């Protein structure tokens, strides 16, 4: 083992029998009264290491990550904006972190007042009539939304409506969610300009239509211009409209999903309201609904009553909402994430909401214009970018074998996280680029320079990036081996 390998080894390899972080466990020696037959005889193979070893190991591991705090992260569809530190500090106050979820209302008024106000603010920015904070991620919000649509039709005895329309450009979660709700998916084609194909929509709707799931601005980075027609067609057919809030950042304070005709929306608080992505979670997928779906909201929902001019906060449960689609989590959802979103929204404030959309859109259009000038091909050159846009490397891939994957990996070597690659699936060799409002012009210019450098090296000097990256902790990984020779736990290979 060389030095590097030793430093990078797993904690299991550093483990020595009998070593411990002695400060970290109560000093208990007495045997328990538990029956022998129920006890385990083997010792679980957890690492046996000192506290310093643990701290050093995980600190070193952290340093192998790209993150917003360390790198520009223009990952389309993910809204990787700055996560203000105050949100973490204030949500981590002991009064909040120490509160048991089943504690009495007498010891919850401070927390619940934040949650109630968050619900109100989310209603305001979406134009919805009711909000439930309980979904634990965007995909769970989607599940709640489609389940509510289904429950609505069922409550009217309309049991044949089981078809969900989804544009072919949609996130994979949309069709997967519809399937989880026991609905059939019908895909809608997209026009060359990036809008929903209205004629195809007219042909698709009917007595089986439960609803349509739309992201607007869409996953193609453009605003759905025919939204009013889409609303009319689906509504006339008896269907409901579902708004996938993945791209809400682009329209905050500019247009309300409720005004566009949507009946239900999920919000990704970890995108729009800047709670941390945490290396893959936790998210938070609050849902908002219009009048018709209010009785079906997932529980619990925070309530407020005024007594003698004083506000008292409590919960609406299944007893208050007997038609609710039910509960989605053990308690009330990702409360700590919700607190972070609350702090963020209070710091941004009413005017700040509009500015988020404005500067996110400004940054995207600026980057789009600069990259187009530099010779990159846009998937939708005649459209405004929303807060993100799509570049296609179809030509570069054909002419000099520069693929989206190559550009992604070459960017890592230049200190930039890669944009989203190969999504949306409709556009070949694509990069979906979302700079967010928190990046400065200087950062964007640096990114453009890196993109130009990669393109010119490949085009003019025949450079290949098939083996990039070179400066990361590892080189390109063998995904095929990972899947064929499954090794998902230390000490045991399938």
């Amino acid at each position, binding site marked *: 083992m060389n030095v590097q390998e030793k430093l990078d080894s797993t904690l299991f390899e550093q483990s020595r029998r009998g070593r411990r972080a002695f400060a970290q466990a109560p000093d208990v020696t007495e045997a328990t009264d538990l029956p022998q037959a129920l006890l385990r005889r083997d010792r679980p193979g957890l690492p046996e290491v000192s506290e310093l070893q643990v701290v050093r190991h995980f600190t070193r591991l952290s340093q192998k990550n790209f993150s917003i705090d360390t790198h520009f992260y223009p990952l389309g569809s993910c809204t990787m904006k700055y996560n203000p530190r105050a949100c973490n500090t204030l949500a981590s106050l002991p009064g909040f972190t120490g509160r048991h979820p089943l504690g009495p209302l007498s010891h919850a008024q401070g927390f619940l007042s934040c949650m109630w106000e968050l619900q109100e603010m989310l209603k305001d920015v979406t134009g919805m009539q009711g909000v439930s904070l309980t979904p634990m991620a965007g995909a769970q919000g989607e599940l709640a939304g489609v389940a509510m649509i289904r429950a609505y039709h069922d409550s009217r005895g309309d049991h044949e409506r089981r078809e969900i329309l989804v544009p072919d450009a949609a996130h994979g979660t949309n069709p997967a969610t519809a399937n989880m709700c026991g609905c059939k998916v019908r895909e809608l084609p997209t026009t060359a300009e990036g809008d929903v194909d209205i004629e195809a929509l007219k042909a698709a709707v009917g007595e089986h239509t439960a609803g349509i799931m739309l992201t607007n601005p869409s996953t193609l980075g453009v605003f759905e211009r025919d939204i009013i027609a889409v609303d009319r067609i689906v509504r006339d057919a008896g269907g409901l409209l579902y708004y996938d809030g993945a791209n809400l950042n682009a329209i905050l304070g500019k247009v309300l999903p409720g005004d566009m005709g949507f009946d239900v929306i999920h919000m990704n608080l970890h995108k729009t309201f800047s709670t941390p992505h945490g290396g893959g979670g936790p998210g938070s997928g609050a849902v908002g609904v219009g009048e018709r779906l209010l009785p079906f909201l997932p529980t619990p929902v925070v309530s407020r009553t005024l007594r003698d001019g004083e506000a008292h906060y409590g919960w609406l449960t299944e007893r208050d909402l007997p038609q609710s689609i039910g509960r989605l989590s053990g308690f009330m959802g990702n409360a700590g994430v919700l607190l972070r979103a609350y702090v963020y929204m209070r710091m941004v404030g009413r005017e700040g909401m509009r500015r988020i959309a404005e500067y996110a859109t400004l940054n995207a259009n600026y980057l789009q214009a600069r990259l187009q000038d530099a010779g990159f091909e846009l998937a939708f050159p005649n459209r405004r970018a929303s807060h993100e846009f799509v570049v296609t490397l179809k030509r570069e891939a054909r002419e000099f074998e520069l693929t989206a994957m190559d550009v992604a990996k070459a960017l890592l070597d230049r200190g930039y996280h890669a944009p989203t690659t*190969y999504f949306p699936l409709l556009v070949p060799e694509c990069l979906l680029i979302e700079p967010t409002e928190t990046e400065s012009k200087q950062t964007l210019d640096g990114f453009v320079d890196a993109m130009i450098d990669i393109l010119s090296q490949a085009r003019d000097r025949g450079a290949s990036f098939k083996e990039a990256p070179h400066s990361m902790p590892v080189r390109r990984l063998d*995904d*095929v081996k*990972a*899947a*064929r020779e499954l090794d998902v736990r230390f000490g045991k290979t399938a």
Partner: protein
Amino acid sequence: MSELPGDLMYTSEHEWLRREDDGSVTIGITDHAQAALGDLVYVELPEIGQVVETGGDMAVVESVKAASDVYAPVAGEVTAVNEALADDPEKINNDPYGDGWIVRLAPSDDDGGLLSPEDYQAILDELDN
């Protein structure tokens, strides 16, 4: 240019079918399909005795970047599956028309709707453009 044996029938879903002497049919995916999927890492096979409809899901082939259903080109009962693919899915990459066969069916239906090699070639040509 992908290889296309002349003695097989094809489908627009990039599958091939060979009629065996005993009346059964052997089914696999075409060279074009395996190349598009990339290195295969897993094949989910049906149970022997399973009855499948024409166009119904029968198996799944999976690479690191995609998973694709294998549909039954004709209706019938599964009489054999290529067990060797469980350990070596790459047989499909290496020899799609031979060692990489996937399922054998006893057909219960005629095989109208299958494509000749020429018709399938025309589909591939279209994709190239």
